[in-house]
């Protein structure tokens, strides 16, 4: 037993529920997966080509710790153009290994052991463990479909204690697809200003907002100084495997994140940074093209869920639908496992994103229309087979949206 060598932190860390479903589905033949948290598009050729060219030209060494200056300048310009936010490329922009590393650095740079970070749930699976790894205490706020998974100011205010350091938000959200609009963000901002809290905002799905322009909480009045923005190339540019993200924030916080980054990581991949530079300069048509496809698939799959009797709020962004499966009487895990075994459709049970995700499943629509149609056909069969005598009660409000 080498177990005795493990740190208690590592020992106590919960394995991800997503991992379990990966193991269940991985060995099966003919599975249609709605369980994938990444684009089905391959990175556009011009981006791939720019990286290949950088290799041909011999860009194979470390870059500056915070990333290539030209890339930092382009990131700064991106936030200036899109959000009218100005970040100094020399001291307020950090290129990271995916948004994932950005989240980790942000938390490590600000959280002291025992301090609390408020997390809006259902939430991306890595927030809680990352906070715990930094010695912090995650304080979840549960939200429900009734409020489109938006947190209220009151709920946040109630969760604040004198140990609260920060609030983590994610918009558009993984897993619910909810977009926090200007007024939702303003509510959160008001509490943060009142209680002097920092905001860590995960904007990795910002380019995948369908019904309205994405708003960054950092652009609200008095918020820039208390906000760390996390973003990256994974979702909007279909670059998940490149592991490239970035963080923006006030000078002193960014410099603290940079210190940790330089000792633990040195710099993000040089080759990937050259691709990302091309993405920001010339990749916007491809982003628009992919967004248009996701939007049509979203419309299709959400309507299909509603028609098969699964109430489902219309997600404003990301590429996830988060329908309720409560009408079937199954728990999320039961539903997902039975669906996988009986119809070979992989989805992620909602409870892995927190207790408020129970009764829901996360369905990614980052798949071709052919795959989505087949998944819908199989799910209809599944629901018909397991339907109780009475027809499902379909939520009138969500049917109309």
């Amino acid at each position, binding site marked *: 037993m080498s177990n005795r060598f493990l740190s208690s932190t590592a020992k106590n860390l919960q394995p991800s529920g997503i991992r379990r479903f990966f193991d269940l589905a991985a060995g099966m033949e003919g599975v249609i*997966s709605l*369980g994938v948290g990444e684009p*089905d598009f391959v990175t556009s050729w011009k981006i791939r080509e720019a990286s290949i060219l950088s290799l041909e030209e011999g860009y194979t060494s470390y870059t500056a710790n915070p990333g290539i200056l030209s890339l930092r300048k382009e990131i700064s310009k991106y936030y200036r153009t899109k959000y009218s936010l100005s970040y100094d490329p020399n001291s307020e922009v950090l290129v990271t290994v995916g948004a994932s590393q950005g989240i980790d650095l942000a938390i490590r740079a600000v959280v002291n052991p025992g301090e609390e970070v408020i997390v809006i749930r259902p939430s991306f699976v*890595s927030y809680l463990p990352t906070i715990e790894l930094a010695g912090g205490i995650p304080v979840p706020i549960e939200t429900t479909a009734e409020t489109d998974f938006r947190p209220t100011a009151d709920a946040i205010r109630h969760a604040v204690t004198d140990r609260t350091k920060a609030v983590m938000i994610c918009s558009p959200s993984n897993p619910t697809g909810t977009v926090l609009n200007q007024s939702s963000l303003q509510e959160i901002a008001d509490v943060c200003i009142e209680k002097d809290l920092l905001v860590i905002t995960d904007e990795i799905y910002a380019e995948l907002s369908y019904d309205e322009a994405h708003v960054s909480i950092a652009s609200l009045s008095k918020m820039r100084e208390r906000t760390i923005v996390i973003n990256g190339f994974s979702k909007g540019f279909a670059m998940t495997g490149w592991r490239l993200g970035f963080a923006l924030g006030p000078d002193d916080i960014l410099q603290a994140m940079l210190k940790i980054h330089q000792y633990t990581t040195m710099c993000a991949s040089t080759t990937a940074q050259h691709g990302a530079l091309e993405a920001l300069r010339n990749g916007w048509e491809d982003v628009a093209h992919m967004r248009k496809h996701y939007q049509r698939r979203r419309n*299709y799959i959400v*309507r299909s869920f509603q028609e098969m009797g699964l109430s489902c709020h219309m997600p404003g962004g990301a590429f996830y639908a988060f329908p309720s499966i409560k009408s079937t009487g199954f728990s999320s895990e039961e539903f997902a496992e039975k669906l996988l075994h009986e119809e070979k459709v*992989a989805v992620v049970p909602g409870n892995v994103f927190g207790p408020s995700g129970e009764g829901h499943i996360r369905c990614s629509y980052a798949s071709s*229309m052919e795959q989505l149609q087949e998944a819908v056909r199989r799910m209809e069969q599944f629901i018909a087979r397991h339907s109780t005598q009475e027809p499902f009660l379909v939520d009138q409000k969500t049917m109309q949206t």
Partner: protein
Amino acid sequence: MNEKEVEVLEIIEHNGRLAVDTIAKMIDMSVEATGALIRSLEEKKVIIEYATVIDWAKVDNDDTIKAMIDVKVTPKRDVGFDEIARRIYRYDEVKSVYLMSGAYDLSVQVEGRTMTDVARFVSDKLSTLDSVISTTTHFIMKKYKHDGTIFDEGDADKRIVVSP
């Protein structure tokens, strides 16, 4: 052309077999309205045909030969290139005709059963037309990409089945 019409066209250009109710959901309109919209596009001949892209190279007994022919012509007063183009596109062997800028005037795509068929079409029919000055025939050896569709690339999903 309104926004929804353009959207329908974009969708069915790549998949003419989607059911109307599927398209209706995708564009967030009723099935009736979507059906009516498609019918009107068909009537206006905006939608000309529902075609299929086939990789004939994968069909064992496919023996059609395809060629692109650069054609130089003398344009005629008043009708310019249109008259000669019309004469050319009426032949069954001709699959497409474009008026080009540059070294020659018309680009004509021709299909035949054998190379001799194509050669005979060019020498007997095309070259002998009054206004045709010269032709240069290029046989197509392999299709890599056609009308935006890549032919020789496996599009296997390389993603893992479940991820965060």
